[in-house]
């Protein structure tokens, strides 16, 4: 089974990145052979639609599980049709989140956050000067 983490760093001791669309890396861990690979997230370079680019990339990797912090409506729109299960991890290392997943203590994510939730909690572009 392939488990995909949104990560701020390149290895299993890196901290989980809570922003799915704009995380730096995806770490895909294979439970069958205890190996992992690190991939650059294409979404982080998008001016708009980061969640779309990220979701597209992850779907193509054919993962079974996604562990992240928050996803917006665009990535949710694409992921709802895939068979991947999405869970909310916590602000610790990838390996720690993996253990939590294995012990079934993570909650499923079924609803998206507001758009741009991680960038100033969705309030960055509100109002005028």
């Amino acid at each position: 089974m392939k488990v995909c983490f949104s990560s701020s760093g390149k290895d299993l001791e890196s901290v989980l990145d809570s922003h799915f669309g704009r995380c730096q890396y995806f770490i895909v861990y294979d439970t069958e052979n205890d190996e992992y690979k690190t991939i650059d997230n294409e979404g982080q370079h998008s001016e708009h639609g980061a969640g779309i680019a990220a979701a597209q990339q992850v779907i193509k990797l054919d993962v079974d599980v996604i562990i992240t912090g928050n996803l917006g409506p665009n990535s949710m729109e694409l992921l709802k049709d895939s068979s991947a299960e999405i869970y909310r991890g916590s602000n610790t290392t990838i390996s720690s989140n993996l253990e939590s997943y294995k012990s079934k203590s993570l909650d499923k994510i079924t609803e998206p956050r507001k758009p741009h939730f991680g960038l100033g909690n969705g309030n960055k572009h509100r109002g005028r000067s």
Partner: protein
Amino acid sequence: MNISVLSGKGGTGKTTISTNLAIALSNQGYKTQYLDFDVEEPNGFIFLKPFVISGEKVYVQVPQVNEELCNNCGLCGESCNFNAIVALKDKVTIFEKLCHSCGVCTLVCPQKAISEKDREVGFIEKGSRVELSAIRGVLNIGEPMGIPILRKLKEYLKEEYINIIDSPPGSSCSVINSVEDSDYAILVTEPTSFGLHDLDIAANVVSKMNINFGVVINKSNENDSIIEEYCRNKNIDIIGKITFDRRIAQEYSKGKLLIGNDEIDRVFDTITSKIMEEV
């Protein structure tokens, strides 16, 4: 002749200046049009209260996929610069609000499965108040891009008229689009450090665009020197000042125009003469 009114900082008095200037010019006998280019939050009509006679909806083109012809090659998604179209597994998903209507997906599809359809994003309204023509663009709520409305609004500019362009706040893409064909720009500011900070940004923008401009200090008070010193150093003309008066704010809050008051009329007469000298 196109005269745009911008500010950098929001809330300095663009609409106050544009609406009253438009009326003043019209009263002086000039053929004048007021155009509200702040399509996300057009407020000029609150003060002008024009009799609206016509309007039109504004559309953009977005892709639609004929699923029967589509073979899911994914080329459309790969070619899209805006993440607006995605081909995954057996389905093509289109994110219409991200689409910039460039048409590339329709061109690259090897199956010719993509065509374009219209999507409504807003509307234009045109009316008049006595001799003054008033036009406004309105972006539908929830729409992220105002540029298509601005493009349509520009079709209403009339060469033989004085067109007063009430621009959006800030110095964004929408502002650039609004002011780019101006013969003169009025930069409205207030005597505060916020006002000065954003005035500088706006001044840089119009300078880079080689547009002749002058400054109006709204809510003028004993702190004017903060703006005056800046303008002196940069050789920028201050073409008018409106003294801060609580009554002005009160009238504004009731949606009333300021023209008709002697002092205000004098200010706008001065602004008008200065502009006519420059153009």
